[in-house]
C-alpha cells in the first residue's frame, strides 16, 4: 500500500467520521420531529402514572381541552401570525431520570417552547440542562426556584405559601380555636414546606401548634398517628399537603374529632364523604376550588369561563378533578398571553418578558416574589381562594391576600423554613 493510498484512506475515514459526528451533534441541536410552521408545541413533563399521577394527569386532560378550544376558534395570533397549539406530554412517573429524558425529548424532538412540570426532585433533575439550554420551564412548587434558575417560573401555584390564607380565615371565623396539630408526610418537597408555612401562619394568627407529626410514606395504619395527636386535645387538625388525606379523615371521623379541620388539598372529597359522612366533612377548610364555583365569576378572576371549563372536564372525566386540574391550563393561558405580548413563542423571549413585566394572576392581583426565600422573584403570588365544604360541596369563602401576608410576615416564614431544615437563601 502506497503512502498516497494510506493518506486517501485516512482522509476518507476522517471525512466520514467528521460527517458522522456532525450528524450526531446536529441531532442534539435540531428538533427531530417538526410540526407545521403554524403549530406551537407546549410540553408537559408530568407524572401520569404512580402515586403522583393525580397531580399530573388531570392537568393534561384540561390543557387538551384548552388547546382544542383555541384551535377550533382558529388558533392564537402571535407576532402577526396565527398558530395552532399542540400539547406534547411525557409521563415521568415522578422518576428523576425519566424526567430528564422526557424533558430532552420534549425540547429536542417535539420542539416544545415551554415545558410545564409538577415540581420537586423531577424539576431539580432537569434544571441544570434547562437553564443551560435556556428552556422556559414552569413548576407548581416555587421552592424549586434557586438563585440561578433563570428560566424556571411558578406562574400559577405558589405552593405552599397560599396555605396562610386558610389559616387567616380560620382565625377570623373561629377565634375560639387556639390549639393546632399538624400531620404530614416527612418529605422536603411537599410535607415539610407546607408544615413550615402552616406553623408560620398559626404563629401569626396567635394559634399554638401543640404537635407536629411527620410520618414516612410507609404508613399503612393511620389510627396510631391520629390517636397520638388527638391526645393533645387540639381545636384544629391540620393536614399540611398530605398524600394521605383520605385515611387521615377516616380516622378523625372514627376517633370522634369534632374540631376544625384545615388542609392544603382535599382531592376527591366525594370519596372522603362516602367513607365518613357529609356532616363530618362539612366545614373542612382547604385551598383548591371546584371551577363551577359562583365566586369564580367575580371581577378580577383571570380565567375564561371557569364554569364551562369545569363542565367540559367533568363531561369526559367525571371522577378525575384534582387540585391541579385547572393549574396547568392557567399556566398555558398565561404563557399564550405573554407570547402574544412579546410577539414570540420562543423560550428566551417569553422568559425575558416574564422577568421584566407584571402579570395578571389567575385569582387576581399578581406580584413576583421569592427572592427572600429562594433567591429569585420568579413565583407569581396574588389572591388565593379559601375553600370550605358546604353541604357536601366545595365553596369559595373569600380570596385571601397572600401578597399582603408575605409583605408583613416573611421573616416568620423564613424562620420556620430554617427550623425544619429547608433551603433558604
Amino acid at each position, binding site marked *: 500500500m502506497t503512502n498516497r493510498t494510506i493518506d486517501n484512506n485516512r482522509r476518507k475515514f476522517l471525512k466520514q467520521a467528521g460527517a458522522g459526528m456532525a450528524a450526531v451533534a446536529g441531532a442534539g441541536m435540531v428538533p427531530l420531529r417538526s410540526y407545521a410552521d403554524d403549530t406551537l408545541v407546549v410540553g408537559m413533563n408530568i407524572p401520569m402514572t404512580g402515586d403522583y399521577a393525580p397531580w399530573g394527569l388531570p392537568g393534561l386532560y384540561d390543557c387538551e381541552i384548552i388547546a382544542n378550544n383555541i384551535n377550533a376558534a382558529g388558533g392564537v395570533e402571535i407576532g402577526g401570525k396565527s398558530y395552532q397549539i399542540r400539547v406534547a406530554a411525557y409521563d415521568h412517573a415522578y422518576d428523576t431520570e425519566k424526567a430528564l429524558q422526557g424533558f430532552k425529548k420534549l425540547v429536542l424532538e417535539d420542539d416544545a417552547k415551554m415545558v410545564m412540570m409538577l415540581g420537586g426532585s423531577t424539576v431539580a433533575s432537569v434544571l441544570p440542562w434547562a437553564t443551560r439550554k435556556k428552556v422556559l420551564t414552569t413548576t407548581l412548587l416555587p421552592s424549586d426556584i434557586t438563585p440561578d434558575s433563570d428560566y424556571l417560573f411558578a406562574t400559577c401555584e405558589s405552593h405552599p405559601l397560599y396555605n396562610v390564607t386558610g389559616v387567616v380565615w380560620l382565625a377570623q371565623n373561629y377565634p375560639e380555636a387556639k390549639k393546632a396539630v399538624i400531620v404530614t408526610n416527612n418529605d422536603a418537597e411537599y410535607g415539610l414546606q407546607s408544615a413550615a408555612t402552616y406553623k408560620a401562619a398559626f404563629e401569626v394568627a396567635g394559634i399554638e401548634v401543640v404537635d407536629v407529626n411527620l*410520618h414516612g410514606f*410507609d404508613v399503612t*395504619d393511620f389510627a*396510631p398517628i391520629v390517636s*397520638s395527636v388527638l*391526645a393533645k386535645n387540639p381545636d384544629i387538625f391540620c393536614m399540611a399537603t398530605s398524600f394521605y388525606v383520605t*385515611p387521615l379523615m377516616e380516622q378523625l371521623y372514627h376517633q370522634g374529632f369534632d374540631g376544625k379541620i384545615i388542609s392544603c388539598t382535599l382531592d376527591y372529597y366525594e370519596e372522603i364523604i*362516602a367513607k365518613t359522612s357529609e356532616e363530618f366533612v362539612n366545614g373542612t377548610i382547604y385551598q383548591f376550588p371546584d371551577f363551577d364555583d359562583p365566586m369564580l365569576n367575580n371581577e378580577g378572576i383571570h380565567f375564561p369561563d371557569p364554569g364551562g371549563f369545569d363542565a367540559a372536564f367533568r363531561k369526559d372525566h367525571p371522577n378525575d378533578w384534582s387540585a391541579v386540574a385547572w393549574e396547568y391550563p392557567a399556566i398555558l393561558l398565561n404563557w399564550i398571553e405573554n407570547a402574544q405580548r412579546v410577539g414570540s413563542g420562543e423560550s428566551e423571549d417569553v422568559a425575558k418578558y416574564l422577568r421584566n413585566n407584571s402579570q395578571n394572576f389567575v385569582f387576581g392581583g399578581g406580584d413576583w416574589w421569592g427572592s427572600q426565600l429562594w433567591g429569585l422573584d420568579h413565583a407569581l403570588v396574588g389572591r388565593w381562594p379559601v375553600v370550605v365544604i358546604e353541604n357536601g360541596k366545595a365553596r369559595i369563602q373569600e380570596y385571601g391576600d397572600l401578597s399582603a401576608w408575605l409583605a408583613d410576615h416573611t421573616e416568620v416564614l423564613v424562620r420556620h423554613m430554617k427550623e425544619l431544615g429547608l433551603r433558604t437563601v
Partner: protein
Amino acid sequence: MELLVQTMVNGIIQSGFYALAAVGLVLIFGVMKVVNFAHGELTMVGAYSVWFLHAQNDMPFLLTVVTAVVLVAMIGLLMERFLFRPMTDSPLGGLICSIGVLFVLQVAATLVGGEGPSKQVPPPYEGTLVLFDMLRIPYQRLFSFAVAATTLGLLWYFLTRMRIGWALRAVAQDREAASLQGINSNRMSMIAMGVGAAMAGLAGALMAPLTNINPHMGHNVIITAFIVTIVGGVGSLPGAVIASVLYALFHTFVTTYFSGTIATISGLVIMVLILIVRPSGILGKRVTE
C-alpha cells in the same frame, strides 16, 4: 390511660392483618422453600378485586371477599404449577420468578384500575363502636379483625387436627422423609401455595375499605411480612402469629408515643438484631447441616 387503651386496641387489630400476610408467606416458604416476593402483590390483587367488584360494580361485600380469596388462590396455584414447581431444585430461580410475577401483577392492576389516584372502597360496615366513652373501634376494623382471627384459628385447626395438615407440616419439616412416607410433595406444595395465596388475598380484601389501594401497596405489606417472619422464626407458623402480635403492638405504640418513622426504623433494627443474635427467630428451630 385512654390513649394507652386505645393504642393497645389499635395494635391488636393491626396484628390481624400482619398475621394473615405473614402466615401465608411462612407457609409457602416452609413447604416450598421459596421466598415469594410477589406475596405483597397477592395482597394487592385481593384489595383490587374488592375495589373492582364491590366499589365499582356493586357486588355484595362479603361475596367480593370470597371472590378475591378464590381469585388470588388461583393465581397462587398457577404460580406453583408453572413457575415454582419447575424451579424446585433452584430456590433462586423461584425467587426471581416471584419478582417477575410482582411486576406482572402491578402492571395488570394498572390496566384494570387505570392510572391516576389511589382507589377507595367505602366501608360496608359504617359507624364506630364506643366503649366506656373512651375506646373507639370502627365496625369495619372490628369485622376485619374478627375474620382474620377466625381464619387463623381455622388454619391452626387444619394444620394440627387434619391429616392433610399433618402431611403439609411433614413436608415442611423434611420433604424427602415425607415422600418416603407416601406423601405427594407436589400436591402439598400446591396446597401450601393455594392456602398461602388465599390468606394474602383475604388480607388485601379485608384491608381494602381501610387503606389507599394502588398497584404498589404490596411493597409495605411484604416488608412487614418479612420482619414478622424473621422475628417469629422462618418457617414457624406459631412464631409468625406471635411475632405479628408483638410487632403490631410495638409498631403501634412507638408510632403513637414517638413517630411512625422511628417505629419503622426500630422494626428493621430489631429484625437485624434477631438475625445476628438468634437467627432462628423466636420459635424457629436451629438447623444443623
